[in-house]
């Protein structure tokens, strides 16, 4: 007891020093670091601004000199003659993206549901890495694969050249599967586990649980995933370039050559000068705006979602 009270006294003595105030140097140091970190975080903002500025700077004049309507609405792309209508390219991008989504989404969502709801840990430990590795394979290798394996196959089944939207759909569908599947799996995984349990406990089968409870509950996340897959599809360049055939026209069939915004940029860039080059940068502006629009859509949807939840 005596010893304890001795220590007691000591504590009281220490207390006599009183509460220390924040020292100036600590304050400056912490504030300095904080601002440094903020600066780093701002590099992302800087990046977006720079892209907008420089791509815009190079491409903007096509809209003013050539005319927005003629550029976006023109049905002919013939740079040799100074005709820069990109409607066929926009059409090509949309067709290629649409088909890839139609093929890839069920595959991806199915894979995600499989991973999160059905696979045993063993099977999952094979399938999930496979999906992740698929995401890591460079697009030029998919293009290579598409060019040398898929195109001849399509050629022999369709009797055509094998280039065209159909070939791009398959390659691109494969490429967007990891994007959509991973995000969908996240969305399914973030559903409160109790809901899943409750459904099974009510006597629902796995499939009933999936489509009556889980998919509705993860709806927003799945839509986000598809939108991001869309962005990936519309921005993909090298793989598509190697399999579409690069004809800037409205094709007669899905096995006829077609071109997209991205592929036309790569095909033309080596020799483009003057207005032609400006037009290619103009196409880049459009791609940039589209990708920004998709990001905005995702954010908007999430915001609507949380607003709805707040209202409930």
């Amino acid at each position, binding site marked *: 007891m005596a010893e304890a009270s001795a220590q007691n006294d000591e504590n009281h003595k220490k207390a006599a020093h009183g509460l220390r105030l924040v020292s100036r140097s600590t304050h400056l140091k912490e504030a300095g670091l904080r601002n440094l970190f903020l600066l780093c975080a701002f590099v992302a903002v800087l990046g977006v601004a720079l892209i907008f500025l420089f791509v815009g700077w190079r491409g903007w004049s096509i809209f003013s000199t050539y005319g927005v309507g003629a550029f976006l609405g023109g049905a002919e792309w013939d740079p*040799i003659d100074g005709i820069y209508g990109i409607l066929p390219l926009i059409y090509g991008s949309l067709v290629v993206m649409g088909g890839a989504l139609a093929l890839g989404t069920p595959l991806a969502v199915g894979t995600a549901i499989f991973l999160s709801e059905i696979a045993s840990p063993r099977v999952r430990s094979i399938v999930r890495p496979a999906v992740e590795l698929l995401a890591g394979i460079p697009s030029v290798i998919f293009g290579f694969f598409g060019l040398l394996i898929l195109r001849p196959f399509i050629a022999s089944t369709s009797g055509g050249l094998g280039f065209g939207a159909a070939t791009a759909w398959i390659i691109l569908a494969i490429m967007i599967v990891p994007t959509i599947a991973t995000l969908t799996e996240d969305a399914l995984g973030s559903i409160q586990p109790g809901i899943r349990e409750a459904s099974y406990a009510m006597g629902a089968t796995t499939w009933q649980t999936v489509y009556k409870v889980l998919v509705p509950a993860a709806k927003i996340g799945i839509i986000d995933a598809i939108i991001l897959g869309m962005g990936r599809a519309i921005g993909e360049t090298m793989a598509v370039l190697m399999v579409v055939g690069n004809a800037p026209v409205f*094709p007669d069939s899905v096995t006829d050559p077609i071109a997209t915004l991205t592929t036309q940029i790569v095909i033309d860039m080596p*020799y483009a000068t003057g207005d032609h080059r400006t037009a290619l940068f103009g196409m880049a502006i459009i791609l940039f705006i589209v990708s920004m629009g998709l990001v905005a859509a995702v954010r908007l949807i999430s915001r609507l979602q949380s607003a709805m939840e707040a209202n409930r």
Partner: protein
Amino acid sequence: SSSGASSAEIIVTGSTTILPIAEIAAEDFTDQHPGTRVLVSGVGSSAGIESVTRGSSDIGTSSRDLKPAEEELGLIDTPIAIDSIAVIVHPSNPVDALTSEQVRQIFSGEITNWSEVGGEDREIGLVNRDEASGTREAFHKIVMGDSKFDRSAAVLPGTGQVRSVVANAEIAVGYISLGFATSDVKVLAIDGVVPTPETVRSGEYPIQRTLHFFTDGEPTGLALEYIDFILSEEVQEGVVRDAGFLPIPREGD
């Protein structure tokens, strides 16, 4: 070889078609002549001719003949290779020969079915090269004249791909440098002439052009040595053939 030319430098500017030959030859050349430098750049034939005229380069390379206006500049022409373009189809295609006019009509989209040129009743699958390609440029100039290429043709940025696409699509037609034509595609006779080294050299085969080096006056010093190197059997049978061109006929031939 004169070692006196060492530590000298020449500039070679012009045709992108010639760029690969000129560049690779330059590497080999400088390997054999240490201390020399050969700077090669591809900016297009016209720019090459202009730059040698202005004196900003020692050799101007061109994949076309001189225009009348340029002929008055007094440039010395050294042909270095022949670029001959073969029109190719699938081996099973019954069509063996076309006229230049038919080829033009096919590639401009006026003829769209093989039956119109004596083949089966099938669509024609056009395979074109990208616009940056020298082969396309030459083909356009020699065959197409004022006609435009059909824009719905597949555009491939590489010779080998054109060949392999034609090799396994029965409806396809394309064109590549003669030197790259192999037995998995059928080379068509044009205006009744089958392209062979002989018919090309004799000038009977119509789709061909000569690749030139132009110098302002007789080449001397390192430029002469480099040109001689290009014309040597080593380069003619090696690099030139590898690039799909035909060697220039040698004086002894």
